[in-house]
């Protein structure tokens, strides 16, 4: 029997649930020569702010057991370049779901950027990043407090007609409370989780490995923690969840979906294997056969 990999996110049909996570797949175009992007369920573009940013000083990558720390710090060309150049260029080679990931340092910045993303024809979903651990006075600060998470959500919902997903930080005491606050404020969906604030020290140099001292830890090791958070949030909220955090295989995708994810983002794994997403998608039908699954939709929140 032909396996049905498709899922639906807020009325948007994805041919499969696998989406490269923001920051681990550039603006899509960087990999257009190396793979057929159209096999992907969607692409979450690199986090974008109002103004162009260089980001943090290097080194901004550190190896860890089972993962890595990054402190890129939202390097991006700014929202105008995203909507006027990056997205139209991507649309020439890619027909699937495009998720624009928007970050900001103030409510006004979130409002302006999201309005521009909403007006951009090539963008399907707006993913609002309130969880970047690598920038000061912004990013994660909005995502670690229920009131400010709700305020960002309300602000962007006022200017967006497209589905708005809020990307949550795992660096909180109670992620369910933040998730509920976003849902109550009108979020159409949630992406979780972003990276875990971490650190490494070069013991020979007696200095942090990362120039910015700390960064976001991600990779295979965080999978059980991310899965637990997806499970808790998906069972506490009615809006769809994109599960993210340590996903590295087709088995992880199925596990995330059983925990409650409607779509699944693959992040750090892309950095060690740029072909991770197409390989996972290729392997899904075989795993579905093994598990007796005809349609992936039927396993969402199966547990």
């Amino acid at each position, binding site marked *: 029997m032909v396996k049905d990999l498709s899922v639906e996110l807020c009325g948007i049909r994805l041919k499969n649930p696998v989406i490269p996570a923001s920051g681990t797949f550039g603006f899509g175009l*960087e990999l257009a020569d190396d793979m057929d992007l159209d096999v992907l369920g969607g692409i979450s573009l690199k986090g974008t702010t109002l103004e162009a940013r260089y980001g943090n000083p290097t080194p901004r990558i550190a190896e860890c*057991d089972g993962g890595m720390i990054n402190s890129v710090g939202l390097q991006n060309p700014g929202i105008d370049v995203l909507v006027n150049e990056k997205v139209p260029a991507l649309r020439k080679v890619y027909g699937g779901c495009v998720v624009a990931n928007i970050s900001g340092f103030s409510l006004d910045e979130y409002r302006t950027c999201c309005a521009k993303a909403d007006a951009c024809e090539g963008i399907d979903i707006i993913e609002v990043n309130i969880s970047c651990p690598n920038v000061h006075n912004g990013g994660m600060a909005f995502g670690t407090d229920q009131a400010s998470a709700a305020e960002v959500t309300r602000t962007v919902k006022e200017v967006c007609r497209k589905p708005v997903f809020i990307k949550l930080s795992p660096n909180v005491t109670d992620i369910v409370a933040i998730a509920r606050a976003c849902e109550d404020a009108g979020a159409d969906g949630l992406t979780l989780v972003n990276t875990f604030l971490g650190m490494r020290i070069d013991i020979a140099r007696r200095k942090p490995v990362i120039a910015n001292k700390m960064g976001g830890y991600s990779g295979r090791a965080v999978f059980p923690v991310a899965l637990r958070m997806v499970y808790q949030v998906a069972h506490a909220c009615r809006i769809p969840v994109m599960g993210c955090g340590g996903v590295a295989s087709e088995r992880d995708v199925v596990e995330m979906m059983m925990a409650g994810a409607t779509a699944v983002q693959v992040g750090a794994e892309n950095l060690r294997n740029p072909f991770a997403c197409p390989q996972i998608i290729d392997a899904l039908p075989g795993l579905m056969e093994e598990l007796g699954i005809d349609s992936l939709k039927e396993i969402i929140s199966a547990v």
Partner: protein
Amino acid sequence: MKEVTFTVLENDPVAPRTFRMKLAGDTSAICCSGEFVQVAVEGKFLRRPISVHDCDWETLTLVYKVVGEGTAALSAKRPGDKVNALTGLGNSFDIDACQGRALLLGGGVGTAPLYLLAKELVAQSKEITVILGFNTAEEVMLADRFEELGAKVYIATMDGSAGTKGFVTDVLRIKNVSYDYFYACGPKPMLKAVCAAVRGSGEVSLEERMGCGAGFCYGCSIQTKNGPRRVCKDGPVFKKEELLW
């Protein structure tokens, strides 16, 4: 970019903590000198970027220094073992920028990628002078290989145990070397000194901690006169004039 599983042919020390690894496998994605490959190491999350030292239709040769656990694991590979690498990464040296006389400056293991460059320049009948810098005489490597290609080779060592005592730039001050374009690879302080001291145009190959190695994670970006540039994709070779130090 192409993912290839190579078979180790040789993996032998060429200097203290420095190894030359010859690999058999598909090298079709590797075009020119200056490129690098991203080598997977068992038990490590990220791949390790290593410059292409030499390459032909069937073999790829890497010269690398053991600087941590990843490269230490690589040095334990024996003939017949497998090594997975992403190939065809990075830009390349601009061999056409040199009109006729090239100056190659290498520091430590940064000497490695200059060898394939020298071969390409020789194939274009260009005249080559090579200045290599090391800490001590026992670290000196590859000098004979450049000589085999017909290059004039000078050595500098920090302790004076071989060649001129001091930096590669000290050799340049003492010797009368004529060139119209330079190429350099080595530690950042050396490259900075080279760009400040060497007159005329040239280019340098930079090193940076990388994530993906293929231009999509933006982990290795540096600030240049032309804005942010990814060392892995827009580099690793940059024109002297483009760099901010």
